[in-house]
């Protein structure tokens, strides 16, 4: 069996003590170890934000790109080398705010990648402004009188946009979190794992305690993840009770399965260039 140490590096995570992101890092390492994947075949891509520093804290190939642009980088790599296990890690501001456009389109395309969003419902690295998932009425540095708009519901959005695996986890339930990431990686198609990952510094509302009083496991309650209507209904539960677990899972051909340019296998392993014969054929079209 593979040991977790395979995925460890010397660089220490720089998150605040108690940050929910530690459990996510551990969850990704646990899942990859459980699946016995070699770190050389893993690419973790992130954008910018506290949680986006994650690729630097584990042993694998990593790409720490621009704010909001992790998904296109990840899908570019995946499309040229579908053999890679590609995981996108980032926060709610990065993924559901500035990068929402890319996230939505990646889901409908059903790339075979896993997107782990550390959703702390606040902008942390910029010291506490409202994020797309901050709740209505909450006071932050950018909304001193309270947030006026309603938050994005990432679960229902993923369900209606075409993600083929949609789950939620909670940093206060580490084993379940690791399991959700593992299932997400195993799933063939776009997997979203939205992780309730409390910010202990800037979000005084959605705390560990607040979540502990509310979360319950969907799978303990007989939820059928094959039924989209049930999943959508469940995705609206919030406040009094908050479901975690797999909302929905379905099979659909991935984008890579149907991409004509990949018919001969991963393009990174194909010979480069055009031989004289094909060259002649290509030029003939212009004669």
């Amino acid at each position: 069996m593979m040991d977790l140490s395979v995925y460890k590096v010397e660089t220490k995570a720089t998150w605040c003590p108690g940050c929910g992101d530690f459990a996510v890092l551990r969850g990704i390492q646990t899942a990859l170890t459980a699946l016995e994947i070699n770190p050389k075949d893993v690419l973790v891509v992130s954008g910018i934000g506290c949680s986006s520093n994650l690729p630097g804290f584990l042993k694998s190939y990593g790409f720490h790109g621009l704010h909001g642009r992790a998904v296109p980088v990840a899908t570019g790599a995946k499309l040229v080398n579908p053999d890679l296990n590609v995981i996108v890690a980032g926060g709610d501001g990065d993924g559901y705010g500035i990068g929402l456009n890319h996230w939505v389109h990646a889901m409908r395309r059903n790339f075979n990648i896993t997107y782990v969003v550390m959703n702390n419902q606040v902008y942390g690295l910029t010291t506490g402004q409202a994020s797309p998932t901050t709740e209505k009425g909450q006071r932050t540095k950018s909304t001193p009188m309270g947030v006026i708009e309603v938050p994005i519901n990432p679960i229902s959005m993923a369900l209606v946009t075409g993600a083929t695996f949609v789950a939620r986890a909670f940093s206060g339930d580490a084993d379940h979190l690791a399991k959700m990431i593992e299932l997400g990686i195993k799933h063939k198609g776009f997997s979203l794992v939205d992780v309730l990952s409390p910010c202990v510094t800037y979000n005084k509302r959605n705390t560990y305690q607040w979540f502990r009083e509310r979360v319950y496991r969907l799978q303990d309650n007989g939820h059928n993840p094959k039924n989209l209507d049930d999943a959508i209904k469940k995705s609206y539960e919030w406040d009094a009770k908050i479901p975690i677990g797999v909302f929905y899972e379905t099979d659909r051909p991935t984008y890579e399965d149907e991409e004509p340019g990949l018919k001969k296998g991963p393009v990174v392993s194909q010979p480069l260039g055009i031989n004289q014969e094909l060259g002649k054929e290509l030029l003939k079209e212009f004669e």
Partner: protein
Amino acid sequence: MTKTEVAVRIAGAAGDGIASTGESFARVASRSGLHVFAYNSYQSVIRGGSVWLQVRAGDKKIYSQGEQPDFLIALNQDEANRHGPTMPSASGIFYNSDKIKIDNSKANLYPLPVKELTAKYGQNPVMQNTVALGALTKILNMNFNMVVSVIKDTFGDKNKAIVDANIGVAQAGYAYASSHWKSIDFSPKYDYNFRRPVLTGNQAISLGAAAAGCKFYSAYPMTPATSILHWMAAHSEKCGIVVKQMEDEISVLNMAIGAGFAGARAMCATSGGGFALMSEAVGLAAMTEIPVVIVTSQRGGPSTGLPTKTEQGDLFQVLGASQGDYPKIVIAPATVEDCFYATAEAFNLAEKYQLPVILMSDLYLSEHMETVSNIDFNVGIDRGLMATPNGNNERQFRRYAFTENGVSPRSLPGMEGLTHVAASDEHDDTGVLISDIFTNEEMRVKVMDKRMRKVQYALKELPPPKLLGPDDADITIVSWGSTYSVLRETADILAKNGIIANHLQIRYLWPFHGEAVEKILSNAKRVLDVEGNYSGQLAKLIRMETGIKIDHKLLKYDGEPFYPNLVVKKAMEVVKE
């Protein structure tokens, strides 16, 4: 005097089939062994408006679409009214006499009773184009078999009835011309066994990318770069290229960078507006040292500007894109053939120096059609410095190892023992961030210097610009990009007027060969800068890099390309001053 060169203008409304008729004529000419140059002046509408395309063909290399055409094919009354009065007496106008009346032109008239001639074939409105094409080829003494072969290849995939109808209609035009009018004295050296491909700059860029082993192409549709996407998508399976249309240009470049990081030769293309969205990611490629080729084909700006018109107004945008100092290479190909080779070269430079290479085209270069004589797919592929899997004895692979020329061995995901993080944050030689806990100032300077050294070394490799034409000239004309062709023609016309001109074409805009340019220009008698923009951006760059101020400028920003006589006039003024 026997003519060996002809210019034909086809004018109508968008949707009249002007581009396909022009292309057909260009192909008939090239299949007859002629050189061809064609330019389509169109508008940002799908139906209606005023559009014209001009094809110039002859038995010597042709450098522009020419100015006053010898023949006009007028497809509607508006265009007959617009172009007819300026057609000289030696010229001719073909038109559908059922729809169009011409009474104010000195030109020879070639009225075609299209209804009668197409009666057998269903009288599709576009058939007037094919009738005119048939008649024109007769007047030009061309071999009708070439018209047949072009129609067959154009409609090859459709049913036989369409091919037969088109050939029939063209034949009717040819026969009508034959029995009603005399052919003109036009006899270039026809050669029906020799064909040069007719390519646009964008098609040459696409072929160059394929030849160089491009394996990933992403884009968002934007004129005038879109036809690269069309070629790539159509040839994706055949050439093993993953082609992805994305949601915006931000994702386009980020995706290409992801593909480049994973080891594919990656390219994307856009125009100025899309390039503006890509800006941040240009710096990302440089910071993470990932090879990527970015094509930006300029059109009239600012903002949405002139979407279907040409301009060279984005030089400063490209040079100034993205925050901070970072290494990049900017190349401006000059001709359609150069588009092919510059693209292949861009891939090699991108991988050799692990940085973004930006190829600057413009609508005129990207979209005009030209016969090319020398396309060799064996372009040579240099993937640059790669680390050896399992060859790393250190605990952490030094992806950004300090080297003399700044280029560090690269590893790709999947390689054993060489994992690392490519970070947009400043990082040390192993890729670990240096500004999160405390900013390591010494390391910052070291890695910045390492990255920038790559451009210094690249400059040593890139060939410096040379003067074209005689060393001792009355005037030195300076240009970049697509204006090259028209200036080639200008020099010949100037010589006939007793003025000796030479030409300095700048192909590498960055890094800039300041010393070479300074040497050339400080020895020049008079210097004229010719650019398709308002502010003389190349002249500004030259002043910045050499201290030389160019006093004479010919700047054009009306959306249309330069014409030889415009430059000739200005050059003569400058010489006589």
